[in-house]
């Protein structure tokens, strides 16, 4: 056992700080695009989200390295697949947090709080620890330090030469590694990035939205198409750090408030705030265009895509929506991205 509690969620749904306050390291399961999902495909048909199948594949092969798993309700995949995880993944502790779908009902916060208190109780019992207010506040402070540094790093994408993969990798570390250890690395990275050359010529600045990107190869494809992600609203990205956890007397209330403040995923109701964040980012950072995408079989984002595309069109914002696969190399996707890049170039020339 190495003190790791793995997280199975979609979007950014699991309360990492509670896991940290239990003395554990939260590790977000992201699967692996290079590993076949055959082990999970025995239980989940091939018409299910390939990312979720990859998460299960990772859990089936790696659970012995983890102390436990916390699953948090995100999309239909998380809660429906949970039953399969319960049946097939060997793990001493598997807990389900039913964080509310609704971000509008008055009762949802009350319910959310009880869900988080139940998680605290379950962790305390399982690991014979006390999750005190002090410990929670300490975890929140560490988490906020990481988020603040990521905010600064993320901002540099607009002015400096920061390849897509580098940005992705640094965000990925934040959701998979010990945050206390990560702080100094992020500080060093910040100094390095500040000294980077300015934003390279020939690249278009884009905002990336849609299904969460969980593997860096996708970012490489964008790079190859000369599209630089300077803004996003993804969970391995701005959704994770755009908001800090507020300083409330009750840390549980603070964690809940944070969940209401982060860029809204399609998996929560209502989804209108998702568009608000995209617009804000688009205008604030003067990006050239918006790349909206959904992973094949990722329904929530696929449903939102038409609304988004239509709204962008109405507002005259250059954008494209693509459906992508869960594969490391994708020539077809690259060709479409190149075409998008050409379109952005033309628009730029017309300005």
């Amino acid at each position, binding site marked *: 056992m190495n003190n790791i509690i793995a997280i199975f969620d979609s979007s950014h749904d699991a309360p990492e700080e509670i896991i940290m306050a239990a003395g554990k390291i939260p590790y977000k399961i992201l699967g692996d695009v290079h590993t076949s999902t055959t082990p999970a495909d*025995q*239980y*989940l*048909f091939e*018409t*299910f989200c390939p990312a979720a199948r990859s998460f299960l594949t990772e859990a089936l092969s790696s659970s012995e390295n983890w102390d436990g798993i916390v699953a948090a*309700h995100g*999309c*239909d*995949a998380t*809660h*429906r*697949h*949970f*039953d*399969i995880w*319960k*049946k097939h993944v060997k793990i001493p502790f*598997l807990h*389900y947090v*039913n964080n*509310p*779908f*609704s971000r*509008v*009902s*008055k*009762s*949802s916060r*009350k*319910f959310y709080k*009880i*869900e988080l208190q*139940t998680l605290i109780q379950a962790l305390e019992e399982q690991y014979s620890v006390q999750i005190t207010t002090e410990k929670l506040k300490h975890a929140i402070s560490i988490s906020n330090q990481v988020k603040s540094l990521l905010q600064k790093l993320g901002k540099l994408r607009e002015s400096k030469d920061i390849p897509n993969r580098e940005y992705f990798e640094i965000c990925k570390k934040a959701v998979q590694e010990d945050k206390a250890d990560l702080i100094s690395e992020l500080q060093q990275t910040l100094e390095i990035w500040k000294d980077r050359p300015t934003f390279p010529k020939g690249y278009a600045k884009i905002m990336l939205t849609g299904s969460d990107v969980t593997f860096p190869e996708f970012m490489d494809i964008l790079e190859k198409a000369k599209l630089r992600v300077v803004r996003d609203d993804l969970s391995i990205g701005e959704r994770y750090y755009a908001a800090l956890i507020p300083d409330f007397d009750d840390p549980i209330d603070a964690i809940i408030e944070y969940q209401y403040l982060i860029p809204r995923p*399609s*998996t929560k*109701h*209502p*989804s*209108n705030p998702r568009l608000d964040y995209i617009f804000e980012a688009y205008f604030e950072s003067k990006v050239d265009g918006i790349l909206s995408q*959904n992973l*094949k*079989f990722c*329904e*929530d984002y*696929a*449903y*939102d*895509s*038409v*609304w988004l*595309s*239509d709204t962008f069109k109405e507002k005259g914002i250059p954008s494209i*929506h693509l*459906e992508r696969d869960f594969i490391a190399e994708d020539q077809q996707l690259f060709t479409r991205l190149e075409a998008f890049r050409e379109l952005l170039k033309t628009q730029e020339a017309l300005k």
Partner: protein
Amino acid sequence: MSSAEQHTQKKLVKTLKTSSKLKKIMAWYFIKGKIYSKLPWKKVAWSVSGFPTEFLWTYDVYPFLPENCATIAAARHKSQELIEYAEACGYSRDLCSYMKTNIGAYDKKLPAQFGGLEKPDIMVCTNTICDTHVKWFQIQSRKLNVPLFQWDIPAYVSGSDEKVMNRYIDYVQDQFWEFTDFMYDHTGKKFNQKKFIKTINKADELAVLWHELFEYRKKIPAPLGYADTLGDVFPMFALVGERSGRGVNFYQELVNEVKEAAKVGKGVVDEEKYRLLFEGIPFWYKIKFFHQLANFGAVVTYEPYTYSFGARRKIIDNDIEKSLREMAKTLIHTPYFYNLETRMEYFKKTIEEYKIDGVILHNNLSCRPSTTGMADLKNYIQEELGKPVLLLTCDMNDPRAFSEAPMQTRLESFIELLEAQK
């Protein structure tokens, strides 16, 4: 002529005499909807399966059920063009075909008899069955500029116990009062306790009769099959708690007919050989597929899908809060969306009670939520319960997913397997 064609050409299963009366009731329901949407003081809602329709009837708000309308479009062979229209608007091939049918049916202003429906005053939905319901209604409420109420129902996953259930019930119950606020804000109608009690009692009458019908399906030969229930379920989702009592009268007549048939040992197929359980939503554009099972002496005697619409919501001791707690349970946990653990136990019990010989599972390309866990379920039924399983990959509303010859061949092999097991 292939053997598949021979079978589909044969005479189809007989349906009950009473079932033919449903047409009139449906016509009445749709006319009522048309009238309600024209009169400014009447209100009309769109709602989803899983949302208690009786809560709308309590307010005399007329419920349009886009899923039901979508099934009508499919049965009238209209769904494909509507789905293709929605896909041309940008909706992916992999998304729910009910949703896409509704997008097409509304935009193309289809008449009710082909699956069209009127613009509502409000929309109500839950996420209890799928995220699709919420996403779908978000899309339409935005487009039609209609207020939406989303009832958040927590997922009761495997391993959940009574403590978990109680937590969830509290949340669901709290939202009932938010629903009444929403109704007041958007329809001007206040919650009326007396009317609520009356409507729920009426709804329960319907559910009791529906369950009684299922009791008769346990008999050998089965006097009632899927060919009847998949149409006869209509009042169970549209007329639950409706005041005129048309649904109740219809079910009472059905029960009487079925009772009589059971008494004299009359089955829906002439020579009942195999009793089947069908899991999933039927192929609405190809209902013949189920009818022609009769050619093999097979009858579907149970399907969780239609049974689940009969969830009983009761008034207990005239106490609203107490009653709401019980109702909340049925919103959280009902056969159609049972978690895998419960689903397995439930299948075991049902297979025994209904003396099932084999199970057909619909791996529905439109409906990932209902298909999740199906691989485990299949293994369990085959290995632990020793019953043959036919897994069909298809779609409930999109005829492009239905491939006649392979489906027929697979069905025939399944029947052979059943025969070998006899």
